[in-house]
């Protein structure tokens, strides 16, 4: 979708709900961030706190909060992500006693889920199914991806991030009235896609 283009464009797209753009940005920054987090981890905690756990929790927060990110340059974006990571690190240090080490999946991927118990519940991830998306997530992701760009943006901002009509309008540079119409059409489109998916599945089964 957005393989190329400068960081600024990627950030803009990411804020508007382009997941691939955000993934690119994070993958690009990953190594530096991992080094930064590792360097801030006190020696005595290195055994109990996994840098990957911190990064996982950070990325989760980034994905959840991207609609509110005000950064428009690469350095500002990185600073925003870094701040989140530092907060996660501080939290992890504070909560290390209660960290559920057993909840960290083993295996080569080793993406931890120690941050919030909710994350474990939400992801439905198991060590073996780590790379296989949960059914519903896959369905939603596919449905979202197949929506026209404007629809996807409207749904993303308005419903996934709970922005008001006015806020959505401001971010998308449209009038509130047009956002209302857009949201309605987007909902109907999404609904139709999901219905089609489920009936296809039923028919196939």
């Amino acid at each position, binding site marked *: 979708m957005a393989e190329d283009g400068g960081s600024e464009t990627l950030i803009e797209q990411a804020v508007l709900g382009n997941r691939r753009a955000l993934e690119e940005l994070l993958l690009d920054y990953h190594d530096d961030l991992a080094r930064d987090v590792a360097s801030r981890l006190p020696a005595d905690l290195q055994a109990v706190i996994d840098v990957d756990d911190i990064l996982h929790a950070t990325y989760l927060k980034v994905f*959840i909060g991207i609609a509110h990110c005000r950064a428009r340059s690469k350095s500002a974006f990185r600073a925003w992500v870094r701040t989140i990571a530092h907060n996660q690190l501080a939290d992890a240090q504070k909560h290390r006693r209660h960290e559920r080490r057993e909840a960290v999946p083993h295996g080569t991927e080793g993406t931890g889920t120690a941050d*919030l118990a909710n994350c474990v519940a939400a*992801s*439905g991830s198991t060590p073996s199914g780590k790379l296989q998306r949960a059914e*519903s997530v896959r369905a939603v992701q596919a449905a979202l991806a197949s929506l026209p760009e404007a629809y996807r943006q409207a749904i993303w901002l308005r419903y996934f991030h709970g922005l008001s009509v006015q806020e959505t309008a401001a971010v998308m540079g449209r009038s509130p009235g047009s956002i209302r119409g857009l949201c309605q059409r987007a909902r109907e489109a999404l609904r139709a896609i999901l219905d089609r998916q489920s009936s296809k599945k039923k028919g196939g089964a």
Partner: protein
Amino acid sequence: MGGPSETGEKGPQERAERTRQVVSEFRSHYDRGEAVSAEAIVAEHQDLMPELGEKLKKVCLVLNAGDEALAQRWTDARKRMDEDTVSFRTGGSSAGASNDAAPTGPLPNTGDEQDLPAQIGKYRVIGLLASGGQAIAYRAADDTLRRDVVVKVSRSARDRAGEREQFFKQGRILGQLGQLNHPNLERVLDCGFDEDRPFLVMDYIGGRNLAQYSRDTRLSPRESAAMVAKIARALAAAHCCGVIHRDIKPHNIVVDKGGEPRLIDFGLALLCDAWQSEPIPSGWLTGTAAYMAPEQARGEEVDARSDVFGLGAVFYFLLTGKAPFAAPSLLAAIDRAKRCDFDRQALNRPGIGRGLRKICLKAMAADREDRYQTAEALARALERWLALRPKWLWSAAAVAVCLVAGAIGVYLLAPRGSAGMAPGAAQSAPPLVQTVPAPADAKIQVTVWQNDAPLPLARAIPLRTGDDLRIECRVPEGLFAALFWLDAAGQLYELPLQVMSDPTPQEPFTRLVWPDPDQANVLAPPPGTEVVLVCAGREAPPSKDEVAPLVGPAQPWPELPERLVVEFDQNSACGGPEPVARGPGNEYRKRLVGAVLERAETLRRRLSERFPVFCGVAFPHVEPDGPAP
């Protein structure tokens, strides 16, 4: 974009390029929703290890986070979409077909109290008990075991994979708590899902919560200490199971009909993941701000010591009658809780000894390091205090009553049978001792019982609505006494006296008490000046009809200064001509208090014309929120 190069010799640049390609393919598969196994990819491209492994790991980290965020957000998004339009909810002819796992299906109606569900799980719903922000509590019947239960249903649906598992895991922990069979812990009997909403099933305990209970039956500090000690023991047991309550407050302690307190609502606190509609930072606002530990109000990690604080706050409430962080708004209460800002002076009340004050303040220390480190330590401190404070006074009174009852049964029968209370015998029966002529002084002692120890009236004034009063009087042998209460509204009542001890050669007095030692007598509104009178006659106990004309019209007495008690008897106490006003610190002060003394003197003169022996006391009674002593 072609397949991987087959050349055996690879330069670092080529390796990097191929790694990129493999990762890119992997992402494409992933994006299309196809199952891909990292192990398989790694096995296929051993030559690219370890760089490929590193890259895959990094990609997985990012992709997984994205999926999790999507899953987390989807429930909310769906809800918002549901809210945004009714057509989204009902539109589409295939709504029925997509009723099951289809992600667009409308959310279950999250708790409309008006339509009571007929059944939740196997439990038949009887009625609504309470409806909170996170859950709704119903009273329900378990028809198989024929008992009443409380069913608490979360307001939010938990239908994602893993959530159910987690809920049941936590339910099992609660079940373990139930298995402790602790008399002061609520038992969780069952848990399950009603459609997508988790529910918990608990014992139904008939009774009042501690807030209501303490309002109706004002507990003495001693009783409060005993109650808090029991809860502390229960809490210690729960902590042993690794369960932190997080929301200890008087409303979460139910006092059953036997007066036994029970700590309830572990479920909500423990299962906050299940009840909260939004993931929340640890501890944040899961408790009630007015009783919340400072660290909890600040949103920091909560541990067992936070519960110790909560219990300390409950103790504070019982001792002072107010919540420590009571405030007009939730935010103000949180702010006070954060700063641990509560009125410590309120504990400096008569009856709350230094020992109890210290225990309460230690449990409520702002820094958790300064608190009792475990609930058990708090329980021990209270139990030690209780053990050291003599209970013998009460036991002695009870024993005396038993002895009297056994030895001279007529004493107990007579007062109940007659209108007035005779220390000697029933009216029809010949007086046991009729020959003692000397009209020694009668004495009346109003006692406010706190810590199961008597506090003289002069030390306890002004009395507050809800104070536990005992009236003991000493009447010379051979006289028939009756007790009267002229309340603040000016109404006259006659109160049945109970014999506590009979005269002995050393002490030729009959001791009488009201009410029965095992009953509480709580001062009821309205506030004002209360007057208690004991009158004794030679032939029979004076009746209300005799006394009423002397007392005069049913008019409230003039108000007394808060720290003043007026006593009078046939000799006007201490032989003086004027009624005596007695203040705090047992200092006798003759002081004119205008209207009250005048009225007392009038009454005194009238009574002295009619009865050989009498005495009375007038004291101030204020509302609990009145000025502190």
